[in-house]
């Protein structure tokens, strides 16, 4: 019966409001509605805090609105839909109404269209100021209240309300004073409890931009407790602070949450106002806040990574993370990235093996210093990136084409140097004896090796390392520096240990003529590194990478002239040097600047990235929406975060995922497979990786079929692990996800 009536009610109510909008006077019932039909689902009543008031006083009026079950009316900011209740006063002269004081509203679903309003009952409070010259006697106070009430349909309604107030010598509270006082307590208070700031998390990518609201770290020391925190924004036509609130603080004392601001017109707002809502147990408190929005996080503030879904509630201890960092650095030594540098180190040890122990130890320490200095530089970059409001990632410098070109050139020169094309000596002299070879690996050489080892290590992650770095990226500056230094210590440790114990080096053969051959042989791993770097550059420049090749050839030619005619030449050294300089300048201006346009990458869509995974599996590009869509369809999802410069990704993870049994399993499960290309380190992917406590690529996530279950984060492949071994880990995770 009710369902049949509802549309009727609505139609009557609409007609009532529309047809006789202003003609309707006192009654809440439409004149034609029939006795049993209530026109609307809200009854309004005007109450006062005083029966009698003396002139000059301010008393409180309340518009008491009682809603039928499940119907609601709206707050001053109705949210994504709805309409705020309005009060139009008709007051006798000498009585002035102030602004409506709105009690703290509730948030109403659906989530897509969140609204703010009141269910059951609300008393909207208005201060009434009485002029001091009012004469004694009764006054009629009237108002027209109009509102929109909604349940599964919306009905606009209005009602005239009135009451009497006596003007007398003394103010006497009314029977309703207690009700008004009760609702006054629900009106958000001026905020003097929380010292809050608001800042943009990052630059806008489209018409939405994430905003962080948080309290200062000092405040966190006070024992503020809350179960949840929210922010109800005031109204604004130019932008909307969306209803969803993402809490990003791990500790309960912190207030730190993310809101998304959608801009309709004009500039990004410089300030926001609204109500901070603190929920603790069954109590809710509202505080009026007005905050300037700064472009970056306040000094000393960092944006902590979102609590990783799988490890929620667990804050890893610093000493454990330092240990992980050390072990991770140690393992980096045997990851494919650093192998070419190891060859150099072996050569260094051989040539020094017969030197005096103190010299060997010093060189070991200088190498360690080179490593540590470069790790400090990396830590500084990470801190800088974070201060700019971005997430940092391990290996992110490979997203910069300029960096890739410089490194490619440098490694090419190292290879040519090993081949003996030219020498690196302080005076540019020729070296021709084994004894002098040893001196080449003096202090600057050891330091340079340390730098090179670190630079080449960054595109590799190792077990333990990823966890430690992921933790570091979410911490404050001193912790970041500490963790990075420990990774450096781990990377340098084997050499320091070896150089401090010359006895361990006894097994090495005596230096001799064979060393020259060994040195040349070691140039080939360096060439292999160049090929790999070149392929990274190819994904940045597309077919223009040809000009990088041309540039490398010019550089190599210049290096040969330099070695052959400047360093070893006898006559016309000046001319040779001039030719070298001309080659370098013209190579740079023509090949790099004019043809390669080395500072500009080609458009993402034109790049042949690792999107072209083969193996018969239908790889799709990753996006949060793609994951959500697949999960909503009840399908398991596998996401491979990878980059063309990531050695571990391409050597172990990619072949494992393309493994026949994995491909068959994915097909059988009807899994959606997504590939997130981190080659250019887009910030969405950095953000996503940091959500899972990771530091960079590779990262493989498997989202179970059950859309509510958290994704499984696959462990980092260990060094020397075969793709088939990693495939087993993938299969295991897929099995778990199907359950």
């Amino acid at each position: 019966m009710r369902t049949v009536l509802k549309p009727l009610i609505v139609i009557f109510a609409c007609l009532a409001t529309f047809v006789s909008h202003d003609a309707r006077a006192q009654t809440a019932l439409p004149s034609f509605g029939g006795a049993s039909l209530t026109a609307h689902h809200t009854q309004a009543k005007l109450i006062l805090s005083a029966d009698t008031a003396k002139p000059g006083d301010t008393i409180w009026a309340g518009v008491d609105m009682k809603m039928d079950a499940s119907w609601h009316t709206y707050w001053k900011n109705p949210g994504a839909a709805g309409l705020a209740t309005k009060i139009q006063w008709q007051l006798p002269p000498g009585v002035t109404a102030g602004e409506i004081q709105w009690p703290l509203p509730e948030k109403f679903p659906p989530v897509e269209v969140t609204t703010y309003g009141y269910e059951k009952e609300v008393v909207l409070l208005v201060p009434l100021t009485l002029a001091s010259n009012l004469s004694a006697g009764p006054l009629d106070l009237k108002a027209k209240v109009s509102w929109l009430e909604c349940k599964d349909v919306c009905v606009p309604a209005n009602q005239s309300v009135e009451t009497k107030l006596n003007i007398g010598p003394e103010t006497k509270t009314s029977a309703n004073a207690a009700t008004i006082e009760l609702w006054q307590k629900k009106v958000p208070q001026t905020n003097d409890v929380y010292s809050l700031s608001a800042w943009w998390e990052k630059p806008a990518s489209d018409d939405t931009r994430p905003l962080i609201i948080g309290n200062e770290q000092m405040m966190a020391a006070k024992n503020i407790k809350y179960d949840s925190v929210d922010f109800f924004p005031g109204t604004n036509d130019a932008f909307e602070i969306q209803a969803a609130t993402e809490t990003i603080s791990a500790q309960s004392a912190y207030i730190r949450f993310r809101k998304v601001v959608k801009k309709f017109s004009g500039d990004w707002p410089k300030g926001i106002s609204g109500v901070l809502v603190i929920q603790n147990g069954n109590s809710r408190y509202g505080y009026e806040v007005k905050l300037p929005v700064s472009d970056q996080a306040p000094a000393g503030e960092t944006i902590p990574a979102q609590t990783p879904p799988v490890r929620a509630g667990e804050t890893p201890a610093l000493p454990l993370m330092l240990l992980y960092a050390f072990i991770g650095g140690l393992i980096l030594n045997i990851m494919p990235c650093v192998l070419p540098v190891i060859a150099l180190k072996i050569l260094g040890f051989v040539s020094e093996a017969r030197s005096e122990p103190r010299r060997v130890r010093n060189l070991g320490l200088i190498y360690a210093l080179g490593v540590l200095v470069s790790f400090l530089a990396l830590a500084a970059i990470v801190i800088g990136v974070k201060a700019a409001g971005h997430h940092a990632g391990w290996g992110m410098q490979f997203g910069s084409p300029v960096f890739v070109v410089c490194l490619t050139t440098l490694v090419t020169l190292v290879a040519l140097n090993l081949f003996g094309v030219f020498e690196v000596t302080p005076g540019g002299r020729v070296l021709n004896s084994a004894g002098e070879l040893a001196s080449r690996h003096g202090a600057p050489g050891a330091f340079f090796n340390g730098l090179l080892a670190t630079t080449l290590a960054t595109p590799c992650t190792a077990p333990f390392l990823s966890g430690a770095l992921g933790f570091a990226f979410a911490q404050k500056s001193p912790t970041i520096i500490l963790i990075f230094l420990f990774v450096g210590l781990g990377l340098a440790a084997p050499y320091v240990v070896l150089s401090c114990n010359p006895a361990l080096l006894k097994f090495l053969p005596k230096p001799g003529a064979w060393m020259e051959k060994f040195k040349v042989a070691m140039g080939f791993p360096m060439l292999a590194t160049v090929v790999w770097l070149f392929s990274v550059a190819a994904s940045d420049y597309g077919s223009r990478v040809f000009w990088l090749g041309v540039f490398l050839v010019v550089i190599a030619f210049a290096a040969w002239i330099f070695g052959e005619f400047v360093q070893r030449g006898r006559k016309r050294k000046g001319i040779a040097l001039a030719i070298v300089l001309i080659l370098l300048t013209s190579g740079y201006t023509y090949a790099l600047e004019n043809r390669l346009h080395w500072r500009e990458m080609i458009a993402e869509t034109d790049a042949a990235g690792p999107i072209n995974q083969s193996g018969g599996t239908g790889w799709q590009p990753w996006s949060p929406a793609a994951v959500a869509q697949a999960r909503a369809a009840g399908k398991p999802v596998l996401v491979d975060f990878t980059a063309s410069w990531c050695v571990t990704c391409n050597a172990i993870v990619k072949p494992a995922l393309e493994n026949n049994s994995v491909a068959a399993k994915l097909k059988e499960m009807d899994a959606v497979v997504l590939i997130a290309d981190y080659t250019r380190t887009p910030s969405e992917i950095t953000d996503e990786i940091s959500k899972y406590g990771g530091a960079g690529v590779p990262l493989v996530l498997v989202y179970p079929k059950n859309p509510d279950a958290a994704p499984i984060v696959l462990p980092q492949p260990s060094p020397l692990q075969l793709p088939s071994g990693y495939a087993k880990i993938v299969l295991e995770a897929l099995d778990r996800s199907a359950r």
Partner: protein
Amino acid sequence: MKITLALLTALTFVTAAFAVEVGKPAPDFSGTDINGKTVKLSDYAGKLVVIESYNSDCPFCNNHYKTGAMPDLQKDLAAKGVVWLIVNSVNPKNSSHRTPEQAKQEMIDKKITADAWIDDSSGKIGHLYGMLTTPQMFVINKDGTLVYDGAIDDKADPSHDPKTARNYAREAVDNLLAGKPIEVSQTKPYGCSVKYAD
């Protein structure tokens, strides 16, 4: 409670991720109109398209129909060769849902002259376009770019006279046809929430 909150949050972000963006290509969709015909946005490639998020039980929408403002706008724009698509995303359990028969009658009663009334009771198109309220208007230019998303006009009220308000959809179409830039390309939509299934 926390889990529910987290889910709500996640869902909202998902929704936000699906929403369309002004200045970008309007995503294609396919729906069934009340005559059982399949309607695709791409069917109208090369034409100006206006999409109206509709629910006539919503007083904000109804205000535009009972005052005759919306039927007039539909007629005026049709005369200029503009395609008008009504998208009704009310879920079948809501009392405002319309069966195809009811919808056909309503088109006559309300003098609706849209090219199609698409039954989106699954909310698929509504979610794809991030429709929040009824009414909410979208204008798509001839090359398929979304050029307006937001409120129908500048008076968020269920009982105003729409003919005296600044109608953003009409203005966008007129400017497009006159080759002028669109002054207001995005506004906060007002009205009732779209009655999606829970």
